C-alpha cells in the first residue's frame, strides 16, 4: 500500500516542481510550489516523522507560501504572466539537469544504500525535543537569533520611506 502512495507522492512532488518552474503564471507557479512542499511533507509522513511533516506544512505552506504569494501579487499584473528565458540557456539547463541527475542517481544506485531497509521503530518526536534542548541548545539559540535578525533585516529592507504627512491644505 505504501508503494502506491509513494509513487503518487513522487509524481505529485516532481510534477508540481516542474510546474512551479514552467507554468506561465507566477501565481499558479506558487501554487505548484505549494504542491511540491506538501508532497515533501507527505514523504515525511511516510518516513514516520510526523513532527517534521506538520512543521513543514505549518512553516512552508502557512507562512512561506503566503509570503511568496504576497510578493507575487505586489508585482504588476503583466509581469506575473510574462515568461523570460532564452532558448540556448534552456538547453544548457536541461543538459545540466540531466547530467546531475544521472551522475548522482547512478552513484546512489551503485552505492550500498540500495539495499538498506530498516525494521526499527521510528524516532519518537520527544527525542527530537530532548535533542534540541540538550545537545543542540547553542544551535537552537543561534537559530533563533538568525531568524530574528533576518526578519528584522527583511523588514528594514522592505520598509519604504513613508509618504510624509504633508496632508493639511493651508
Amino acid at each position, binding site marked *: 500500500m505504501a508503494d502506491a502512495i509513494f509513487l503518487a507522492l513522487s509524481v505529485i512532488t516532481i510534477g508540481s516542481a516542474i510546474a512551479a518552474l514552467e507554468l506561465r503564471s507566477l501565481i499558479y507557479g506558487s501554487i505548484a510550489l505549494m504542491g511540491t512542499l506538501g508532497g515533501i511533507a507527505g514523504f515525511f509522513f511516510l518516513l514516520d516523522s510526523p513532527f517534521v511533516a506538520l512543521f513543514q506544512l505549518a512553516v512552508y505552506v502557512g507562512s512561506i507560501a503566503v509570503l511568496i504569494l504576497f510578493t507575487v501579487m505586489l508585482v504588476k499584473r503583466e509581469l506575473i504572466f510574462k515568461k523570460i528565458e532564452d532558448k540556448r540557456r534552456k538547453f544548457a539547463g536541461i543538459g545540466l539537469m540531466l547530467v546531475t541527475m544521472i551522475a548522482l542517481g547512478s552513484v546512489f544506485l551503485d552505492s550500498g544504500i540500495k539495499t538498506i531497509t530498516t525494521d526499527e521503530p521510528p524516532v519518537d518526536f520527544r527525542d527530537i525535543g530532548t535533542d534540541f534542548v540538550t545537545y543542540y541548545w547553542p544551535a537552537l539559540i543561534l537559530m533563533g537569533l538568525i531568524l530574528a535578525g533576518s526578519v528584522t533585516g527583511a523588514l528594514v529592507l522592505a520598509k519604504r520611506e513613508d*509618504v510624509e*504627512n504633508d*496632508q*493639511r*491644505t493651508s
Partner: protein
Amino acid sequence: MTAELPPGLALQKVDERIMTLNVGPQHPGSGHMRIVVQIDGDYIVACDPDPGYVHRGEEKMAEYRNYITNIPHLERPVIHDSCNVLYPYVLGVEELLGIEVPERAKYVRVIASELNRCIYIMYWLAIYGIFLGHSTMFMWPAGDRELLIDLMEKMTGARVTHAHFVPGGVRNDLPPNFEDVCLRQVNYFEKRIKEYAAVFYDNPILISRTRDTGILSRQDAIRLGTTGSVLRASGVDYDLRKKEPYDVYDELDIHTNVMKEGDSYARSRIPWLDMIESCKIIKQALQKMPKSGSVRVKLKPNPKGKNETVYKRVESGRGSLGCYVVSDSKPEPYRVKLSVPSFRNLIALPYLLKGEKLGNMPSVYWSLNYWPVEADR
C-alpha cells in the same frame, strides 16, 4: 481650464502606486454620492467628493410655483428633517407677506421642529452605527425613532413628509390629549437614548477608533464656514436657536453643547447631546404653550410678496439652514436659494480625509453630519 474637455472630465495623471477607488454611488459606505478616493496603501492621498446624483432642481422648481404650493416640494431634500428644511422658507415668506403668527402656532412649530431634529439625528446615528460596523447601533435608533415618528404622525398626519408648516402658522392643531402622550413618549425616548452611552458613546473601541481622527481645528472650522455640529465640535459656540432666536426660542432655556476636540468622536457626540437637549426643549415648550388659541392665520389665495429680498436661517438638525427668497411682486418667488448645511459641511471632507487611513473614511465622512440629498437639493 482647457476648452476641449468639459469641466469635470479632465483626468489627472496619477502615480502607479496610487489606487483610485470609486466609493459610491453604489457602495454601502457612500450614501447618494460618489467619493473618488485615491489611496496609497492604506492612506488616502486625495479625495474628491462628487455629489449631484440626486439633484432635483428644487430651486428651479420653486420659481414656477406660488408661495403655498412650494411647500410640499421644498421639504423633500431632507424628508427626515422636513419641518426644519421648510422652516426658513416659511419664515421668509411670512416676512415677505407681512404676517404675524399666533403664539400657539409658534410653540407647535418649535415642538415639531425639535421632534423632527431628533428624528433626523436618530436616522443619522443609525447610519453612523452601521458605518462603524455596529449593527446594534443601527437597529436601536431605527426602532426608537418610531416613538417620535408616531408622535409626528399623530400631530401632522404623515410619517415623514409632513408639509405641516405654512406661512401664517401650522396646518392643523394638536390632537386632543397630545400633551400627555408626547410627554410620556419623549420621557421614555430620553431614557432610551441615554442607554446608548454604554454600548456606543462610552465604548472604548469606538473611542479609540474615532478619537484623533479627522481633526478640524477651530480656525479651520471657521475658515471653511462649516456649521452645526461640525462647528460646535470644534469649539465654536454657535447655535442659531440662541444667537438669532426665531419664533419662541428666546423664551426657552437652551443649552448649547460645545466640544473642543474637533475630531470624529466629538462631531458624532454633539448630535447625541443635542437630542437630549431637544427633549428638554420639547418639555419646556409643552409647559409654556398656550393651552388653546388659533394656530393659523388664514391667507388670501395666491398671495403676492413685497418687492424685497429676505434671508432667513434656522438651526436644523445639521446646522444653520438659510433660505434666500427674492420676490418681484408676483405670486411666484423670483428665486429661492436654499443654503443648506450639508453643502456647507461638504467642503471639509477632502480637507479632513487627506492623509487619513481608508478605515477612517466612513467615520469621518458620516461624522460631518452630511445628508447627500440635501446637498444636491
